[in-house]
């Protein structure tokens, strides 16, 4: 297996250098906390419910590239594929807090859960109201009766978009939390991997796949999926992913959904658009209406090749927040 080939300086410093570059790429819209790997909006209104996002680095532009107007107010950044430490989360939370409480929104992983929980306890000691909503969209990770055991993958993108909008418009933490819980209850994703990514500091690919193999349900750090298979056609892959997604919520005729196809890193947009074509044929056949589509590169796993498909069932309220304009390095909409 060939060595991952990357243009880097010191592999031990990738996160620090990446964050510096990210702040500069934001043209003044965000800043880094002086002593912590956290990103905070510079244009935070004086009073709002705060939305803090975050997680391990290496998934750029998620999470720290999703800080901005109607998106996250701040992000706590861990090392590559490692949840941020409690002190980073704590300081980021203090920096975004505007007196109306803070929603923690992040993917459901043991590391993130524990580190964010420790920070939440520290903040509660300070008298700050913190609520936590964990994204659990990966249907490959656990059966439907154990959604609390599911990983957060590309559903993060719609979650941040919706909760970012809600946290701009709604006045109380209760209300923002309510919208976030509704959104997470209605979002489902599943991925497929074609080739592995690597962690810069180890220089090692996180898994191995034969030249003719794919893995359905691969997680966002190379965690095992549900099935390793021989390479098959785009239509066959789309059919399998959609079958697993649709039967899960389940999505049914008459539902309105948002559809997101996320590049895990090195897959071509051509492939994703070809897959999109098939997905739309299936949804049409099932009587499911697509309110909105997003096809692009948001939650990456370094140079992993593959993609995931996310469906979120919408009502008028979720549509409203999903369709709000938003601005951030990694995701902007008019």
């Amino acid at each position, binding site marked *: 297996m060939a060595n991952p080939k990357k243009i880097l300086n010191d592999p031990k410093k990738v996160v620090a250098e990446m964050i510096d570059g990210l702040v500069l790429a934001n043209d003044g819209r965000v800043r880094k906390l002086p002593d912590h790997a956290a990103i905070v909006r510079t244009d935070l209104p004086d009073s709002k419910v705060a939305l803090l996002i975050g997680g391990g680095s290496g998934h750029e532009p998620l999470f720290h590239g999703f800080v901005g107007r109607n998106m996250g107010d701040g992000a706590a950044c861990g090392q590559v*594929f490692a949840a941020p430490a409690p002190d980073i989360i704590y300081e980021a939370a203090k920096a975004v807090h505007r007196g109306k409480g803070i929603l923690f929104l992040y993917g459901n992983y043991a590391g993130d859960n*524990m580190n964010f929980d420790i920070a939440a306890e520290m903040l509660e000691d300070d008298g700050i109201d913190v609520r936590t909503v964990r994204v659990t969209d990966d249907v490959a990770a656990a059966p439907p009766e154990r959604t609390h055991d599911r*990983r957060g993958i590309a559903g993060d993108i719609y979650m941040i978009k919706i909760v970012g909008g809600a946290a701009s418009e709604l006045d109380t933490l209760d209300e923002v939390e309510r919208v976030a819980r509704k959104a997470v209850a209605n979002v489902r994703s599943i991925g497929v991997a074609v080739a592995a990514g690597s*962690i810069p500091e180890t220089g090692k690919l996180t898994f191995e796949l034969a030249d003719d193999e794919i893995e359905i349900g691969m997680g966002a750090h190379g*965690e095992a999926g549900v099935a390793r298979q021989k390479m098959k056609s785009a239509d066959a892959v789309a059919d399998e992913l959609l079958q697993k997604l649709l039967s899960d919520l389940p999505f049914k005729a008459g539902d309105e959904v948002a559809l997101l196809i996320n590049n895990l890193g090195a897959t071509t947009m051509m492939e994703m658009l070809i897959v999109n074509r098939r997905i739309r044929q299936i949804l049409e056949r099932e009587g499911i209406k697509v309110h909105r589509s997003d096809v692009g590169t948001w939650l990456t796993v370094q140079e992993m090749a593959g993609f995931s498909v996310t469906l979120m069932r919408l009502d008028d309220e979720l549509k409203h927040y999903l369709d709000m304009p938003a601005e951030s390095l990694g995701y902007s909409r008019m």
Partner: protein
Amino acid sequence: MADTLDLKASTDMLRTVSRSVIDQTDVLTDADLAIGDGDHGIGMRRGFEGALESLDATPPDSIENALKAVGTAILSKTGGAAGAIFGTLFRAGSKPLAGRDRLDGEGFAAFLETGLEAVLKRGGVTEGQKTMIDAIAPAARAARTSSGEGLPATVAAAAAASLEGVEATKNMIATTGKARSLGERSLGHPDPGAISVSLILKAMQDFTAKA
């Protein structure tokens, strides 16, 4: 072979432990590559490098604070599951040493027991789920049983029990953490965090045997 360690020796032991885990970065990373995301080694290295820095920058004034400093460094430098778990282990585990100026077998057993209790609470998992708990729990029990035989024997018993715990994780199917979705594919592989526990205890054993 001293039966107890004073503050200076305890601090030296923690330095030795740190260097020894740092030396095993690749072993831990490879173990995590097999059933996790491949970052356990570099995470533990970050944590214990931070511990060394902290112990050098602010020489601790008590055994309790020495253990706590290591935990705090791990908690803030390691990140991920291991940062929270091993940080909690050392920070919570330091508490029973409050006011004691020597580390003895009983104190060591209390360190493991109290740390374990906090880790169980923090992580919400129990024995048998293929985590570091499957190394630390038997170690704590073994330490308690031998706690009257002096520190070296207590640590040696804990280290041996943790190694058996690592072996036992090979036959467990992960039901938590990144390895969970592997299901049966996790069989045959030891848990990376459990290996870390055994490395830490082995380094303590070697140190106390010579001290």
